[in-house]
């Protein structure tokens, strides 16, 4: 073991359901969880004589994704038929893109900790139609539901640039954020909006020689946990297999494996990669798509600042922690709300605290976004300024924020009504300080003695003043008065 080193090599194939109103090549509604075969028509049923018509929106969504993934967008792209027989594929061919995908040669940046990013190259992204769903019951028959058949499906293929389960996960998370930011997919993994298929193997260095283990492709993973888990499991499994058998990658010994979520392990599905012949050829029912400069420009204008870039900007420009920045940029609407508040003149860190510690907590509990809490950007900015200016203290700020979600009143009015305005007037506060000093001679002595107890006693006295003022004293001012009186 000592003389063995290894490197994990992972490439990903990702399928993303686009969130268009209708299917890829017909007018059927895209809907999940509906009664089987209730969202179908002659086209997606593949009935004789029916013809596909391209959903332009789906194509534009895909181009938007291609642009966000820094891909080259093809000026000319076409549709091909991929032929294979399966009951969930009504035409027994899938309309896809073969040799001229709409985009190629891009990359995605993923965070790898410590403010660092890594580029994962994108080989290509193409658009195709999804198949239906077969259900195998216990009886001697299977059922086919074609509601999903014809759903626009974006397929993204990466280069084998990921080197750990964590990186694969980071890639998946980042891609999910991107498609959600662009509004092109709901990106709900549980509903199968995003499916991942990692190709994994190891480069093992042993006794100065390099070996590559056979590639395993894990099919249809639809949770980040399963994705990361499967990669980590494969690393251990492949190392073990190599040590036991010395098996290395040769043509045709790629295996296909599934993920057993309960057992947290991958399971062999197909031993040898079959050389399938899909008999691709250009679909004569559809016209090639010519991407004009004007059209591309129009789509490019719909791009937005991508989540990772935003997150890094928050850290650099607003001095937020990486964690806070990632929380705020988790969803585009939240990030944009935050930015509007900051733009209204509030201090970013204060706004961040209000939004993450109060706003998002409530939003998460309600299962909604920040913008749905009934908060006005200007009011939140005002509130942040009030805290900043010492008119109220931080805990009062949290309380006012809560109130703002339930009322039409501004933060100033709420603060006054709840009597939360801080006492910052030195003359007024001096009366309270003097009273406290008179009542607590022992503590005063402790402070003045300068011994071990001095710091605690000072804190105690400050607390007493706060209590006497029912929490409304500005602690900074009180502290200054205490200093003056005690030194």
């Amino acid at each position: 073991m000592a003389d063995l080193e290894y490197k994990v090599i992972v490439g990903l194939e990702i399928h993303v359901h686009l969130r268009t109103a209708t299917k890829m090549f017909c007018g059927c509604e895209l809907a999940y969880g509906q009664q089987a075969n209730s969202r179908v028509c002659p086209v997606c049923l593949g009935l004789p004589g029916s013809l596909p018509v391209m959903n332009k929106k789906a194509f534009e969504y895909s181009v938007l994704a291609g642009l966000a993934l820094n891909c080259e967008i093809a000026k000319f792209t076409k549709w091909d038929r991929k032929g294979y027989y399966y009951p969930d594929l009504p035409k027994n061919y899938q309309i896809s893109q073969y040799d001229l995908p709409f985009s190629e040669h891009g990359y995605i940046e993923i965070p790898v900790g410590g403010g660092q990013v890594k580029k994962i190259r994108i080989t290509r992204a193409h658009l195709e139609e999804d198949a239906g769903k077969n259900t195998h019951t216990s009886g001697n028959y299977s059922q086919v539901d074609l509601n999903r058949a014809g759903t626009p499906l974006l397929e993204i293929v990466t280069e084998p640039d990921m080197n750990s389960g964590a990186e694969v996960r980071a890639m998946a998370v980042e891609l999910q954020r991107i498609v959600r930011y662009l509004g092109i997919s709901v990106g709900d993994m549980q509903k199968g909006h995003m499916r991942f298929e990692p190709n994994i193997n190891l480069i093992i260095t042993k006794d100065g020689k390099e070996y590559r283990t056979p590639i395993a492709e894990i099919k249809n993973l639809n949770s980040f946990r399963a994705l990361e888990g499967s990669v980590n499991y494969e690393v251990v499994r492949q190392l073990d297999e190599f040590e036991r058998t010395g098996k290395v990658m040769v043509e045709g010994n790629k295996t296909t494996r599934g993920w057993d979520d309960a057992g947290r392990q991958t399971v062999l599905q197909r031993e040898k990669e079959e050389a399938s012949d899909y008999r691709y050829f250009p679909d004569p029912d559809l016209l090639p798509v010519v991407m004009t400069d004007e059209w591309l420009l129009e789509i490019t204008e719909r791009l937005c600042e991508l989540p990772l870039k935003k997150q890094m900007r928050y850290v650099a420009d607003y001095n937020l922690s990486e964690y806070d920045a990632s929380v705020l940029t988790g969803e585009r609407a939240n990030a944009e709300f935050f930015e509007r508040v900051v733009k209204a003149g509030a201090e970013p860190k204060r706004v961040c605290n209000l939004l993450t510690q109060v706003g998002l907590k409530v939003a998460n509990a309600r299962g909604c976004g920040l913008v749905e809490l009934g908060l006005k950007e200007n009011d939140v900015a005002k509130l942040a300024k009030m805290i900043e200016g010492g008119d109220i203290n931080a805990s009062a700020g949290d309380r006012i924020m809560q109130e703002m979600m339930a009322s039409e009143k501004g933060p100033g009015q709420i603060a006054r009504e709840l009597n939360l305005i801080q006492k910052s007037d030195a003359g007024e506060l001096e009366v309270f300080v003097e009273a406290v000093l008179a009542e607590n001679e022992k503590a005063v002595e402790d402070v003045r003695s300068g011994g071990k107890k001095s710091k605690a006693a000072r804190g105690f006295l400050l607390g007493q003043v706060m209590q006497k003022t029912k929490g409304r004293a500005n602690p900074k001012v009180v502290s200054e008065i205490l200093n003056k009186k005690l030194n």
Partner: protein
Amino acid sequence: MQNKLLDMGIKELRDEIAAGRVKSISAVEAVFESIENREALIGAYISTFKERAIAKARETDSKVAAGEKVGALAGVPIALKDNICSDFGATTCGSRILENFCSPYNATVVEKLSAADAVIIGKTNLDEFAMGSSTENSGLKQTFNPWDTSRVPGGSSGGSAAAVAADMCFGALGSDTGGSIRQPASFCGVVGLKPTYGRVSRYGLVAYGSSLDQIGPITKTVTDAALMLSVIAGHDERDSTSVDESQAAVDDYPGGIDEAVDGLKIGMVTKFNEGADQGVRSAIEAAIEVYRKMGAEIVEIEMPYFDYSIAAYYMIATAEASSNLARYDGVHYGHRTAKPKDYIEVYSKSRQEGFGKEVKRRIMLGTYALSSGYYDAYYLKALKVRNLIRGDFVKAFEKCDCIMMPVSPTTAFKVGEKTDDPLKMYLSDIYTIGVNLAGIPGVSVPCGFDEGGLPVGLQILGPAFGEAKLLRIARMYESQSQWGKKKATVI
């Protein structure tokens, strides 16, 4: 003597019905009487819709009586080739695999016919999935030529052509992938028009070779073909390959039909005629002479790649067919084998039992042409040849208004004569196939008879979307000849 109404053309009948002088119901009854008398001999129809037709005729008649506006085909009995989907009756494609298949929707052309108040009376026989040149490949029945019932009606739209020739309808729709409208029209002595690819919506036409298929009319006269084309032509948003009318407007085809084309230049390739039987050659030469007398100039043109059209066609059409017909698998609709032992057998046995010999042959040819390792040598090469043939026509039309040649090297052949030799059958498509590869329009016009009394068709080809002029040229000849007025022997 048959009912005099049946001697009318579509235009005349429609105008009489619209004027209230003739009742649609009378025309429908006359047609059904004709069907009852002749169907046993001809076998043109797979299904007929008498009750439905009568109801539709009454509806039109009462519209006329009420003084309402009626459509361009008001009350006229029309037949559909049975590979055009209708939400009434079955749509069999002449195949056992779809013998009981009922389409839940109408083809765009069916909607357009209905909107024009046509009366759809039945669906006609065809070579299975439109694959064939004699209608002998139908899995459901045999159709015979109304001029000689020992002979084939041509194909694949043999049922439509025979029904028109035998006065069992006033006009019919066919589909043409490699000559399937023009060749049976020629064999049956009627007019058949294959429009430019993209002129008529294919939505609801059961696909054979998607890049070649086009629906068109089969009628007794050129004027009727123009009228039917004007009803079915136009862009359809459900068919991406139907052409945007801003790029190629739909002309008023029947409007100027009687205007002769001044200074007409006819392109011809001498050696094409030489390849045809003597009877065909004589008729074509006589027809050209008629044009010459009308002042037309004959221009010799070159079509260097024309000879490769059959080879290219049987790669492209079969490749597309192998994919188009993959859906008939016994899983979702159509014939399913009785006792499959697993799901693979649902596929293999359903298809084995449902498809006929010729369809299987073409599926295998096409599957082979698309297979990895063969794609470049066959399919891709065929596409290149197709471009060259297209170029041949573009160049030719720089020198002439139209090109004329026979539709088929022979007249109607005997039933069973070529069924054992598929290659011989394929070769008889030599004159019609290039047109589909180039996507241009072509029309077959009756131009006489051979020594055996069988009809000969003159094929006239025009540039893409030039149907208006093409039909005028065809009409010029028709107006000078009496061939089309001669009734088939069965009548």
